[in-house]
C-alpha cells in the first residue's frame, strides 16, 4: 500500500494542473479586457491629449478628427454622481432591511423576505429600466418642476427638468437595484457575529436598538465593503441608466436635469462610432476608466471584507 501512494499523489497533481487552464479564465478575461481597452483607448489620449478627459463638449466630426471635440468629463462625473446618489439612498434602506430580516421578522417571514431580495437581485436590469421609463420618470417629473420653482436658486435644482429624465432619477433607480447587493454583504457579516456577543449584550439588559447598534458597529468594515461593492455595481450599470438619465452632455451639477454616464455614453454611441474617426477610441478610453473604477472598488471591498473576518 505504501508503494501506491506516490502514484495517487501524481494523479492528484495531474487533476490540479488539468484544472488550472479553466481556473485562470477569469484572470485572462480581465487581462484581455484591460489590454484591449488600453490598446484601443491610448490612441485617443495621444491624439487629443488630456483634453479628452477634461473637456465637457462632445462635437463629433465625420471627416476630420482634428475638428472633432470629445470630452469624457460629463460622463465620468455623471457616473460618479449617480453612483454616489445610489449608495447614499440604498445604504440606510439596506441596513434597515438587514435588521428587519435578521432581528424583527419571524423565521417563516424571514425566508420569504430573503427570497424576495434574491428575486430583486436576479431581475434583469432592463426590467428596472422599463419601469424607470414607464413609471419612475413620469411621476418624478412634476416633483422636479416643483423643486425647480421653489428651490431653483440652489445650483442643484436650478436647471429646467426634462420630463423626469435626470441624474437624480438614474441615482434613485440605481439605489433600488443595488439594495440586494449591499444587503447580501452586510447580512452575511451580521450572521457571522458569534452568538455570545448577542447574548452578552442582551443579558446586560440592552434594548434591541442598543444592541443592534453595537453589532452593526462590530461589522463596520463589512458595511464599508457593501458600500464599495454597491458603488461599483451602480457605476457599471448600463441599460437601465441609459433609459432614464436623459443622455445630455451636461456636467451633473444640477441633479434634476438630464446628464450622461460613461456606460450609457458607450451604449448609445459605440454602435455607430466607427463612422467617426477616433470616436471609437475615445469610447474605449471611457471603458478603461470604467474598468479601473470597477476593479478599484471591488479590490477595496474585498480588502474590507478580509478585515471583518479578522476582527469578529
Amino acid at each position, binding site marked *: 500500500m505504501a508503494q501506491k501512494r506516490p502514484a495517487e499523489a501524481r*494523479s492528484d497533481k495531474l*487533476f*490540479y494542473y488539468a*484544472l488550472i487552464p*479553466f*481556473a485562470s*479564465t*477569469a*484572470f485572462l*478575461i*480581465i487581462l*484581455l*479586457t484591460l489590454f*484591449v*481597452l488600453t490598446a484601443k483607448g491610448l490612441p485617443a489620449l495621444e491624439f487629443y491629449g488630456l483634453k479628452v478627459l477634461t473637456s465637457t463638449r462632445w462635437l463629433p466630426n465625420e471627416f476630420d478628427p482634428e475638428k472633432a471635440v470629445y470630452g469624457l468629463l460629463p460622463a465620468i462625473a455623471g457616473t460618479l454622481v449617480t453612483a454616489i446618489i445610489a449608495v447614499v439612498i440604498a445604504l*440606510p*434602506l439596506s441596513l*434597515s*432591511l438587514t*435588521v*428587519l430580516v435578521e432581528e*424583527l421578522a419571524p423565521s417563516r417571514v424571514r425566508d420569504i423576505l430573503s*427570497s*424576495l431580495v434574491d*428575486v430583486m437581485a*436576479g*431581475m*434583469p*436590469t*432592463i*426590467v428596472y*429600466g*422599463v*419601469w424607470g*421609463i*414607464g413609471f419612475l420618470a413620469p411621476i418624478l417629473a412634476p416633483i422636479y418642476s416643483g423643486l425647480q420653482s421653489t428651490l431653483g436658486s440652489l445650483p442643484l435644482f436650478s436647471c429646467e427638468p426634462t420630463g423626469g429624465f435626470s441624474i437624480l432619477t438614474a441615482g434613485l433607480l440605481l439605489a433600488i437595484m443595488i439594495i440586494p447587493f449591499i*444587503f447580501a454583504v452586510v447580512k452575511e457579516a451580521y450572521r457571522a457575529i458569534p452568538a455570545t456577543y448577542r447574548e452578552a449584550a442582551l443579558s446586560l439588559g440592552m*434594548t*434591541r*436598538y*442598543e444592541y*443592534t447598534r453595537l453589532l452593526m458597529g462590530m461589522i463596520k468594515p463589512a458595511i464599508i465593503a457593501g458600500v464599495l461593492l454597491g458603488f461599483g455595481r451602480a*457605476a*457599471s*450599470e*448600463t*441599460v437601465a441608466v441609459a*433609459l432614464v438619465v436623459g443622455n445630455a452632455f451636461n456636467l451633473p451639477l444640477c441633479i434634476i436635469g438630464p446628464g450622461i454616464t460613461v*456606460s450609457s455614453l*458607450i*451604449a448609445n454611441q*459605440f*454602435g455607430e462610432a466607427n463612422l467617426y474617426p477616433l470616436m471609437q477610441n475615445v469610447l*474605449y478610453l471611457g*471603458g478603461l476608466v*470604467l*474598468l479601473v473604477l*470597477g*476593479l478599484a472598488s*471591488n479590490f477595496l471591498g474585498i480588502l474590507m471584507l478580509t478585515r471583518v473576518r479578522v476582527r469578529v
Partner: protein
Amino acid sequence: MYKRRIMKDRLFTLAVSVLGLLALAPLFHIIYTVTVRGVPAILEAGPSFFTEPPAPPGSERLGGIAPALLGSFWLALISTMLGIPLAFLVGLFLYEFKESRLARLVRVFTMSLLEIPTILVGMLVYTIVVIPLGGFSVAAGAIALAIVMLPYVATYVERALDSVPATYREAALGLGLSRARTSLIIAGIARRGVLAGFLIGFAKAIGETAPLLFTVGSARNSLNPSPFEPGDAVPLLVFQFIATPYENWIKLAWGAAFVLTVTVLTVFIALRVVVREVRL
C-alpha cells in the same frame, strides 16, 4: 431614563420596519407595472406576438417578437453550453484546492469579474470576436453571455460543494479515492446546489442586455436559425424599442418585458424548489 430608552427602541423598530419594507416595495410595483402594461399588449397582438417579426414602426399592427424569442433561445442554449461546464470546473477548483495560494488568487479574480461592467464584456467580444469574424452573430453574443455568467455560476457551485459536510470527503479520501474522484462524488451529493448554480447562469443568459449591444446585431426580422448569422434577443428588443416614439414598438417592448419577467420569475421559483431540499 428607562422610558426614554423604551421609546427610542420602539421608534427604531418602527423606522427599521418601514424602511426595510420600503426597500422591497419597488419589486412588487415593478412586477405590477410590467404586468398591467405587458399583458394588454400581448392580447392586442394575439398569437402573432409569438410567431411574427415586429410590424414596421408606426404601423397600426403590432406584429410580434418571434425573432427575438428564437434568438434568446439560441443564446441561452449556446452560452450555457459554453459557460456552465467552464464555470463548474472553476468552482470545482476553488473548492478542491481552496487551501492553495493559486485558488485564493483565482477567487479574487473571479469576484473581480463580477464587478466588470457587462458592457465592457460586450466591447471585448466585439473587438476580439465580431471584428475578426467580419460581423455580428448569435455565437458572439453567446460568448459574451458565457463570460458574464461565469463568476455567478462558479461561486454558486463552490458554495454548494462547500456545504457538504467534511465527513463525506474524508470518507471518500479514506477509501483511497483520488481527489478528482472525491470531488465528483461531493458534486454528486451537492447536485441540487450545483443545479441551482446552473439555473442562476441560465437566468443571467436570458436577462442580460448590455453584453449583447455590440455582439448579436439586432437582426429583428429574420428567423434565421444559424448561430453564425446576426440575431436578436428579447432584452435587446426591449431596450431598443421602449425609448422609440412609435406606439406599436413601445407596446411590443412592454409585452416582451412581461415575457422576460415571467421567465426569470419561473427560473427563481424552480431555484427555490431545487434548493429547499438541498439542506444537509
